[in-house]
């Protein structure tokens, strides 16, 4: 019988960018045969939300740059000017993850951003459309891979409870004390719920999240009995 692997948000997202060297382990892992991959609606929604929030943030940022460069006394539209205005824009963003996403996006795409701003409205609009369509493609592939149908590439379970206070109150309390991040705790409890109530078999919780999950592997496994927390590379290497 195939082992059950619960994929968290980092794997759901990482497998959208399998070409990226930093996610090569996810890419290798996702191609390993003989694994029953599952996830929860919460993990899926979080991955979907990340893609949609990034789409929004990037398009809004580009519109702001466009407006700033049309103001009197604006800097010259070149990479230095874009960099200067971008840094000013990023300092005002409270959400650290979005700020990091935009910073990295700008670092890697400053040439395209600058050209889109230099070459007139239609080039700028086309670049925005490229961005929108890129995220749309990723959102579609995520939704197609991760469905509730039996036999889906990643079978998504939509039956996990909204809150765990009643059924796993103690486990939740101990995990919050350990991880201090409720969203990750809920996703861990989703996987535990599926192991405990639906599959009735031990499962692997697969993630690349070092800060919240992998650092606490032993403690988490001590709280959620039967579950093994693992990095995708462990399964790739084993195969």
């Amino acid at each position, binding site marked *: 019988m195939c082992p059950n692997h619960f994929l968290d948000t980092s794997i759901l997202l990482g497998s959208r960018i399998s070409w990226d060297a930093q*996610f090569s382990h996810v890419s290798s892992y996702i191609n390993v045969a003989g694994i029953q991959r599952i996830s929860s609606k919460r993990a899926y929604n979080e991955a979907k*939300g990340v893609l949609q929030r990034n789409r929004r943030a990037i398009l809004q940022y580009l519109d702001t740059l466009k407006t700033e460069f049309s103001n009197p006394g604006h800097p010259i539209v070149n990479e230095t000017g874009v960099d200067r205005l971008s840094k000013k824009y990023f300092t005002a963003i409270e959400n650290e*993850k979005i700020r990091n996403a935009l910073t990295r996006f700008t670092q890697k795409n400053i040439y395209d951003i600058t050209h889109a701003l230099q070459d007139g409205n239609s080039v700028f609009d086309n670049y925005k459309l490229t961005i929108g369509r890129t995220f749309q493609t990723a959102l579609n592939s995520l939704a197609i891979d991760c469905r509730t149908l039996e036999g889906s590439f990643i079978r998504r379970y939509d039956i996990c409870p909204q809150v765990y206070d009643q059924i796993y109150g103690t486990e939740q309390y101990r995990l919050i004390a350990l991880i201090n991040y409720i969203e990750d705790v809920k996703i861990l409890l989703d996987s535990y719920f599926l192991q405990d109530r639906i599959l009735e078999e031990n499962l692997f919780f697969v993630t690349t999240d070092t800060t919240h999950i992998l650092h606490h592997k032993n403690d988490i496994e001590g709280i959620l009995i039967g579950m093994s927390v693992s990095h995708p590379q462990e399964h790739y290497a084993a195969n």
Partner: protein
Amino acid sequence: MTNEGIRKMRYSPIKHPVSVLDILISEIFHSSPDLRVSKNIIYKILYDLKNQLDTDNPIRDTLSFYWYFYGPNSDSLKEHITKMEKRGIVDQQELPDGRPLLHLNRDISHIDDNGLDEAHTKLHKILTGFDISKAGEYRESIYRRYAPFSFQNTFKHDYLKQLKSFNAKIQVKIVLEDNENDDEILKEFSRLENLLYTSENELSVHPVFEDFQEDFSSFVTGTLRILETNMEVSDFNKFNLGKETLDFLNDSTWNTFARGVRIPDEGHDPIYNDKIPEWCEIFENSLNGYQNIIDDYDTQSIDFISMNRPRSKILSSQSKSILSSSICGYLGYGE
């Protein structure tokens, strides 16, 4: 207002104490013979008037509004019109389709009131340009001139109008089995994409829309799936299935937003401040319902893609760079 209208108002006998609102509402009916209008049109005309009156005109304080499903709404005007009905000044009649319309039953006397001269002049100017057969255009002009949030115009007018034109072109394509307009259809699709992304970003302007914005993003994702698939269908049944799903979602989206638009200060006059807790509760309940609809929509729209166009796309190097840089940044991966 016609001269005949002014004459009638000045010389009719006083049967009830006449208020400024009685005068202004009656004037609307004198703008054309035997005029029948909905309460919503009266709200819009008087909202227009309020916005044109000098800031120190005391009549502005008698007109209080909040934005809602169909634009400016007014509980106090609604209440006043009901009283006018009871006093026999206006009558309500139902059209065969069930829409209630008001008409003037009898004239009322003129009164002198501080600010009324300016109101007469400005209302006359508004009514001179008003044509009941073009009430839709007038409604849109109220949105264009006064809507407190640009989302209201981008979504309700720009996007929905563009969608209508897009659907019409696809219908022609299916009926005539003609691909000649494919370039034009693609351009319209791009316009729709831009309008949806613009609408999505316009919701950032107020924290009250924060949760709604998350759901609206899922609406955008699902809608683009259906629109893109509909560009390629050659079967009317499939097209209609997508169109009907979309129509329902467009209505649900607007209705949910409209329950929230009156909550921020920009969405209502201060007189309604004590209604805010009640409105917040209504908005929250509506959001919960909308979230369920959006969840279903995600599944429906992906089923739609799978049913019609199951192939996946290959990303360009530019797209790969966009996606990996933002995801890596978001997940906290460095260089």
